[in-house]
């Protein structure tokens, strides 16, 4: 991604804080086959991680009394995964490690542009090179949606590349 990448959708202008990409700490991620109706930290290390077992054919665990089967998924070579988070307006950039004032000159955005009320900032809170993909009772396997989604970056690169004129 390029610095100052932005997109104007429904009166939102999204800015990426490039500095956060460099300093994002590596994390362990689990992608579950369910949605939890809340978005906040949870004691994964106390409740989930210790319950993971290496079964005869893959990883096993349970969540809320349901059996999950998992496998490691690698981020395609040459790419790095990021956990992105929106900055709360009031909290500002302190949300992100490395997003200190001294690095602000990295942002190639004129200062006056930052004052519009449809500007939103997001930054990376963590990075990853692999994650554990969990399926409900069965291993997600090669046909998993997420695996297919990971083919997008290479396709995107191909279709956005310059094509020689002749």
């Amino acid at each position, binding site marked *: 991604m390029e610095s100052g990448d932005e997109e104007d959708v429904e009166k939102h202008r999204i800015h990426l804080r490039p500095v956060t990409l460099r300093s994002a700490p590596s994390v362990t991620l689990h992608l579950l086959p369910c949605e939890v109706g809340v978005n906040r930290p949870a004691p994964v290390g*106390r409740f989930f991680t*210790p319950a993971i077992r290496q079964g005869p054919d893959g990883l096993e665990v349970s969540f809320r009394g349901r059996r999950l089967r998992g496998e490691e998924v690698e981020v395609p070579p040459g790419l790095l995964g990021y956990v992105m988070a929106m900055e709360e307006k009031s909290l500002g950039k302190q949300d992100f490690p490395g997003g200190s004032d001294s690095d602000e000159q990295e942002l190639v955005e004129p200062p006056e542009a930052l004052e519009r009320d449809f500007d939103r900032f997001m930054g990376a809170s963590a990075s990853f090179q692999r994650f554990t993909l969990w399926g409900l009772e069965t291993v997600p396997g090669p046909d998993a949606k997420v695996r297919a989604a990971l083919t997008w970056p290479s396709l995107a690169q191909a279709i956005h590349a310059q094509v020689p004129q002749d």
Partner: protein
Amino acid sequence: MDLGELERDNTGRCRLNSPVPAVCRKEPCVLGVDEAGRGPVLGPMVYAICYCPMSRLADLEALKVADSKTLSESERDRLFAKMEEDGDFVGWALDVLSPNLISTSMLGRVKYNLNSLSHDTAAGLVQYALDQGVNVAQVFVDTVGMPETYQERLQQRFPGIEVTVKAKADALYPVVSAASICAKVARDQAVKNWQFVEKLQDLDTDYGSGYPNDPKTKAWLRKNVEPVFGFPQFVRFSWRTAQSILEKEAEGVTWEDLPTGDQEGQGRITSYFNEKPGNRPHLPHRYFQERGLESATTL
């Protein structure tokens, strides 16, 4: 009773057994099947078989075994110790089904209910005795569900054995009483020494009897709800008591196999004529839909 194997990993099931007495391989034996911990919302369910030669049944009765529910904990422990002393003619085996196994079975995509789980476990233990070379001639089982259909199923599976399934078999047949003692001793010990898989701080183990109607058990469940993960695996998530506490006090979870309601179902046929142009949401290309990809304008 050495439950070390269970304490090392209590997320699945675990079988324990006494050595098979040599005489049980030679002489025709009677075998009793019973269970402990079927009702509680906490801890494992334990299935047990106990067997001895028909010719030694009087010796087993002489131990004064009785329905485990009529005995105190110390009486059960004493009787189990006596059965161990009589290991030259009494044998037993257990199958400990962890609460996690019970939850995940009952909450599976294909529901595996507690009765079926119980029947299959009982049959599995009888089969285990046969595989060990026990000369099983008669089987007595304390019923789960309707005794007639249960008996028919077991009789079909073990045609060479005389199967009797009865309510209160644990009070009627000493060999079933003996099995009920084995099961109850194991269940009590497993609960008492439960190794929580989770790393819990200052866990209080004052959970009462574990039965859903015990106020102490209910209070413990309420106190130990974790909003995202629910409960420790020690709790049977499939129990109504556990589910209703989660509904009230934990975050909602939507699974991918949720039975689809008709929120997207067809409305009235006339709705096709009413639809205003411009109401249709602009859908991304199929490539993105199939991969669950959306552009992120907010997180």
